[in-house]
């Protein structure tokens, strides 16, 4: 085979490899979700983060506005400090609240931001004070059982803490 023909074939091979990489990055992976827009950092404390993970989305009204940068345990307040980066294009009032929500019944967990009414906006390094922890299924069930037990106790009228 002539030298130039070899070069063409090798070049073709490498090009196909690059196209495959591009396909993996854009179509299979989440490259299209990686944004390089300028961001600012906001932190919030939660009593319980459930199954929240770093790089999980931060959504407001269902639209992704940022991502979770890191999650740390604070051993002075015994709470979890969640740091998130939010795109500069989206400004939120200072008294906005953050909730840990679940997409679908068993889907991934994310943070939902609800805008407040303050005139001042959250700045870089700001703190969200109103937070709502993740719902833990076991707590929910035990709460439900206690309520049920308390209800049946009241209906019977004799004992308040009937366990049946």
């Amino acid at each position: 085979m002539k030298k130039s023909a070899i070069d063409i074939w090798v070049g073709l091979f490498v090009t196909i490899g690059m196209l495959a990489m591009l396909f993996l990055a854009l179509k299979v992976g989440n490259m299209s979700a990686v944004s390089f827009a300028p961001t600012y950092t906001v932190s919030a404390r939660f009593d319980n983060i459930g199954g929240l993970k770093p790089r999980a989305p931060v959504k407001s009204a269902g639209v992704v506005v940022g991502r979770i940068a890191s999650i740390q345990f604070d051993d002075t307040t015994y709470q979890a400090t969640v740091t998130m980066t939010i795109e500069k294009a989206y400004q939120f009032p200072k008294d906005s609240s953050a909730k840990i929500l679940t997409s679908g019944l068993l889907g991934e967990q994310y943070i939902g931001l609800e805008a407040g009414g303050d005139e001042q906006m959250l700045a870089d390094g700001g703190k969200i004070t109103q937070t709502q922890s993740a719902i833990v299924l076991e707590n929910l069930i035990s709460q439900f059982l206690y309520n049920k037990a308390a209800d049946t106790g009241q209906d019977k009228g004799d004992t308040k803490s009937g366990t049946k």
Partner: protein
Amino acid sequence: MNLEPSSKSNLITNALGDLGFFIRRNITGLGYAARMFFLVLMRSGGLLKRPRLVSDQILFVGNYSFVIITVSGLFVGFVLGLQGYYTLTRYGSEQALGLLVALSLTRELGPVITALLFAGRAGTSLTAEIGLMKAGEQLSAMEMMAVDPLRRVIAPRLWAGIIAMPILATIFTAVGVLGGYLVGVPLIGVDSGAFWSQMQGGVDLFDDIANGFIKSIVFGVAVTFIALYQGYESKPTPEGVSQATTRTVVLSSLAVLALDFLLTAMMFSN
């Protein structure tokens, strides 16, 4: 030590001697291999001046493996689509088929199966080529002419393998995902939007795709170097070359699977 020629102690000392020889030979081989690896790396600077040497070899190990890699990738994707659907539909979550196919291909199957096929397709031919060069005393002839065979013969082939292997693995993964799509969406009838969006939601560019890429580079180094070393150290006889070729397949397959376990444990543990 008592080395009387009584038959029983002879048997034991022979066995012990064999064991010692076996261990010593393997450790020596490992040392030789490590020394040769660093020598090749140190002497591959000249390739920057003559990149043609590498691109010729990429044609040999890369382009000629293209067809087998593409066809295997397509069929592995087909099978993943069918089997994944069969399992997922029991849990009513067949929308996650795209995620299952893409994750298993990018993280494991893409690099590993490509490396195994690469060992069979390119590794054996490298070993046989180098072994025959040695048997035909071409390598000695080069040394006589003050041409360093490590620099002229081994280094370009090693680099060609290191470059070609990740490209092949990427092609394998991409074709496999397309195969999974072909079986999942047009044939079985999974929703096309859910197929792609679940995939994009679950596959991370750095955690999954980049780590799979790193795996394929490591496998490329391991498979190509084992093939070249076996060829270079083979006995210069037809028998020796055939044994070396067999050892290439066995050793590189084992190395790929063992390295895969180590890399997976390191990358995806946290």
